[in-house]
């Protein structure tokens, strides 16, 4: 794949054998359209990661610290959507978010909006869909992290007249930081490389890196450009994972 990314591509002719160019890479950084797609992908990854964290933490906390008899049903309800076919889940979101979908119909019927708002084929749709899909991963990571926090530490802080919020902010949250980081990295990497959901909820025109790679390969047959993008995506993923392992090591050093 790497050699192909340096080949010239002539529309209608194909890959120019023996050619050598870095244009496929420079285009990712200089061409406005490509740059937009790359930024959109990274921004999407960030937004989805943050949302998963905010939504996932209370749920993970309830699973780890809530009533014992709720535990199993809650965990199964988290695992179930995770095991479910990705295409099926994205299809569910299409039914919900389309112009004549459930959400718009409900809002119109309630008189909150006059005309359907656009929830699909844009960033909103992608964020909602991808958050739903990667939330279970975050929750499971956080449950493991919260369970590792000794209850005595929190109890001790509470005895020392800390308020609940204060205990959470100064004890629980820092102690679960490694789990938060691990979950965030996982969700971020999965989000920026997702193909199915962005394609189904973003349509053929609203593109992220993975769907652009798909189109370059399958529709435009521009393999050199597609593989340059694929290589760039791989580099981003590896860089993020490497960075997180650095942070983890530094934390381990501090403790």
């Amino acid at each position, binding site marked *: 794949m790497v050699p192909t990314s340096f080949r010239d591509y002539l529309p209608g002719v194909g890959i120019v054998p023996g050619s050598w160019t870095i244009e496929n890479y420079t285009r990712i950084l200089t061409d406005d359209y490509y740059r937009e797609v790359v930024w959109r992908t990274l921004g999407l990854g960030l937004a989805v990661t943050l949302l998963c964290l905010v939504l996932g933490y209370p749920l993970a906390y309830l699973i780890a610290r*809530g009533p014992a008899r709720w535990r199993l049903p809650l965990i199964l309800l988290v695992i*179930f959507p995770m095991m479910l076919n990705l295409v099926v889940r994205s299809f569910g979101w299409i039914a919900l978010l389309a112009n004549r979908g459930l959400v718009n119909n409900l809002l119109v019927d309630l008189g909150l909006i006059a005309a359907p708002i656009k929830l699909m084929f844009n960033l909103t749709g992608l964020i909602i869909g991808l958050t739903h899909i990667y939330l279970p991963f975050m929750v499971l990571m956080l449950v493991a992290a919260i369970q590792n926090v000794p209850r005595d530490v929190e*109890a001790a802080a509470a005895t020392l007249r800390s308020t609940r919020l204060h205990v959470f902010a100064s004890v629980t949250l820092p102690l679960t930081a490694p789990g938060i980081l691990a979950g965030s990295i996982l969700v971020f990497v999965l989000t920026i490389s997702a193909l199915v959901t962005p394609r189904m909820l973003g349509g053929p025109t609203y593109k992220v890196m993975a769907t652009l790679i798909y189109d370059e390969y399958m529709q435009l047959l521009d393999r050199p450009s597609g593989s340059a993008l694929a290589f760039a995506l791989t580099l981003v993923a590896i860089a993020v994972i490497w960075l997180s392992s650095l942070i983890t090591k530094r934390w381990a050093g501090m403790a």
Partner: protein
Amino acid sequence: MSDEKPGHLTTALALAVVVFLQVPVIVVVLAAFSRTAYLTIPPQGLTFAWFGKVLSDPDYLDAIRLSLILAVGSTVLSLGLGIAAAYALFRRLVPASEAITSFLMAPLVFPSVVIGVALLQYYSLVGLRGSLAGLLVAHVVITVPYIVRAALASLSGLDMSVEEAARVLGADGVTAFRLVTLPLIKPGLVAGSLFAFITSLDNVPVTIFLLGARQQTLPVLIFTSVEHGVDPSVAAISTLLIAATGLALVLAERWTGFHRFV
């Protein structure tokens, strides 16, 4: 000690999130029983016609068949390869076992699209594109990490002296593994196999690049047909998948305490 328990607000938020996770599933199931030819929720009337339509459509039947062949085939192959690899890695029978472990695990975090295009390039070179063997190999690549992970986790919780005891009592290596070690790591392997099976059945980003002109797997067929417009037959086939997944999850939980392995 009430300070460490989740408060009402946390509980309410968490339960709302649980509902959010189930919403698309409920919507799909409801849509499948609608009488109308377009998607309506709540459904207008009640009909099973869409299920009949899907299950008599040769395109869907072919796709279901290919998906099942790939899922069963790759799970079985991955089980064989994965157990052997995990065992060798765990007992340090091979050098550089840590490097090999992370290499085997790589498909878990590696962008699947990249695996897809890389295999496409390679298959075009060696002429495997569109062949069943090529698809099977690709599915083994993406499912084997789940088996290795499950097997390694189960093995590390195991007291290896049991196997050695069997050896002392006269069992040869294979017999000791088959009669002692294998049954002990079975729950983990069942969980890993379910993950592998579902991953294969679910996969679009790798498969879509490798399919031949007349080949379709089930998720790829749903994926491409949604691009042409949504109708309740897609909801019907999705509902069947939802029911199958739910059933598999419940059975696996009964047999092995599945949630411990996630």
